[in-house]
């Protein structure tokens, strides 16, 4: 520390040469534009490109090697099969974007659909009211997850592992482990099966469930990219401390995310009733892991803050294409699971590679 410092000198001596310094600001040299860098930057800027490319390639692949794959009937079937997984994957995307995870999505879905079915079939409530109450309870279950995550401050994995058991027990108790038969539903509340109905054009048979999935994905895309709420969800997953210091109400936003995800799952329960044609308390218990698979294959990072809902829908369709394509190609069931597992590992490895590029 200098002793003879004259206070309030305009410039410190070591900075005197600055006037002559290069005034060009940060014009980067172009020497690091190798193909890898360009590719990385492109993929980081447009992360949905990867699942989109994988989807196109896999459709072409199975079109070439599996019999009857490239037909409107098969392609419609793939879409129909991924409806419920896709809807739940949309909910799961929201949670994972906040760097959380939701293992209770499947249980929320089934319990909500049982509520809808029981209220309308057994208690004779008008379907509209029964569905609304089912949706409400879906949101309530999600809200409960959110409260545990934010107020009690438990890790989302543990919270939803616990509520998975709780909601599973509740669904078995409330349904008395009995399915609600399709014929009963058709008689008393046909609108519960609305999403199973089809629109036909040119050999394609698209269910309303598929349309609902696409509309839902569009809505959530809009919310994430064009509303402040979406920015806050991203920011919280990215860096919660920075988000807090930027004045974001973290807890309030997180609770809204979990509640909204619960609501979407309940909606998925309604679509599932239409997809299956009946309501069973033991269906859709693998949708938890399937939705996570779809989200990860769709390029959303499990570490939060980056990803897209469109990618998750594409991820769900990719899994559907592989499953259907492999079975049409005469490959055994367990190799289908094998393929899905490989897709997940490749997707996560790719995410890591992209993240490293930013460090």
């Amino acid at each position, binding site marked *: *520390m*200098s*002793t003879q*410092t004259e*206070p*309030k*000198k*305009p410039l*410190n001596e*070591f*900075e005197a040469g*600055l006037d002559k*310094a290069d005034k*060009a*600001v*940060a*014009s*980067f040299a172009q020497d690091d534009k190798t193909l890898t860098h360009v590719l990385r930057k492109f993929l*980081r800027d447009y992360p949905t490109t990867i699942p989109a490319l994988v989807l196109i390639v896999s459709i072409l692949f199975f079109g070439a090697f599996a019999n009857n794959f490239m037909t409107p009937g098969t392609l419609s079937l793939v879409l129909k099969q991924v409806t419920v997984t896709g809807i739940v994957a949309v909910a799961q995307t929201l949670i994972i974007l906040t760097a959380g995870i939701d293992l209770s999505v499947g249980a929320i879905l089934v319990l909500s659909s049982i509520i809808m079915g029981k209220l309308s079939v057994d208690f004779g409530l008008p379907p509209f009211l029964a569905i609304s109450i089912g949706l409400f309870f879906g949101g309530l279950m999600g809200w409960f997850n959110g409260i545990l995550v934010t107020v009690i401050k438990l890790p989302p994995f543990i919270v939803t592992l616990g509520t998975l058991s709780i909601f599973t027990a509740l669904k078995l108790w409330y349904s008395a482990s009995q399915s609600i038969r399709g014929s009963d539903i058709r008689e008393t509340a046909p609108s519960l099966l609305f999403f199973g109905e089809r629109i036909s054009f040119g050999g394609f048979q698209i269910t309303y469930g598929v349309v609902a999935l696409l509309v839902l994905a569009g809505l959530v895309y*809009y919310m994430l990219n*064009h*509303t*402040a*709420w979406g*920015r*806050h969800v*991203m*920011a919280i997953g*990215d*860096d919660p*401390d*920075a*988000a*807090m*210091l*930027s*004045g*974001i*109400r973290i807890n309030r936003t997180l609770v809204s995310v979990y509640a909204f995800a619960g609501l979407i799952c309940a909606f998925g329960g309604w679509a599932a009733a239409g997809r299956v044609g009946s309501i069973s308390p033991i269906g859709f218990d693998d949708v938890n892991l399937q939705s996570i698979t779809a989200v990860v294959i769709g390029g959303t990072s499990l570490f939060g*803050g*980056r990803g897209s809902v469109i990618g998750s829908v594409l991820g769900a369709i990719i899994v559907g294409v592989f499953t259907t394509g492999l079975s049409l190609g005469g490959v055994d069931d367990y190799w289908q699971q094998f393929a899905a597992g490989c897709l997940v590992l490749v997707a996560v490895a790719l995410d890591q590679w992209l993240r490293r590029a*930013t460090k």
Partner: protein
Amino acid sequence: MTNVQPILSARGLMKRYGQVVAMNGADFDLYPGEITAVIGDNGAGKSTLIKALSGAVVPDHGQIFLEGKEVHFKRPDDARNAGIETVYQNLALSPALSIADNMFLGREWRKPGVMGKVFRKMDHARMQDFARDKLNDLGLMTIQNINQAVETLSGGQRQGVAVARAAAFGSKVIILDEPTAALGVKESRRVLELIQDVRSRGIPIILISHNMPHVFELADRIHVHRLGQRLCVIDPKKHTMSDAVAYMTGAKEPDTELELA
């Protein structure tokens, strides 16, 4: 000096984390149009003091006054809404979001009319223009585009974004925690010019820094923090850097009248 009312002041702030006393009856005063530097050794409680003033920490006891009225900041957005902007040492930027998104994080502008009111649509175009203007003002934005992710920027550029955000929105007080710590000589100079620029617009600044030349160049007063308290406030024109360092490390006790300076 006492005839001017401080714009921001604190009295008797206390904060304990378990056994650790971070603030032990800290006082603070910031006068209109001035730059007050806060210096102190590591662990003296500078950061906690600053966080209390910016709403990131709620003190256990004590009062904070903004323009003479007592305020209670429970969250950072309370302080922000009151017109106090802070650039934290870790910058508080969200790496995956764009420059423009970061500048408007927590205070997004919505589109006018139905799209904004009912559909809550953000006005990306207007926010980007504003962000670009503010960065251009600082000469920081001859670089690439406003929509690139903050994580692709260099440390100095990130600092620039954080300072620009505070300068753009701070209407009453701007707090800068180590604004030049991560910067090279040239970038530091630009940030110092920016700070003087902000002061010349009449907005008072709290500057936390370990860089004595910068502190002595900019500050109108220097608040020396020691052991969770205000030790004294010195005038940089009447004291040398070695005096300041001696006070803050405890090598020298200040004269009693200094405490009223």
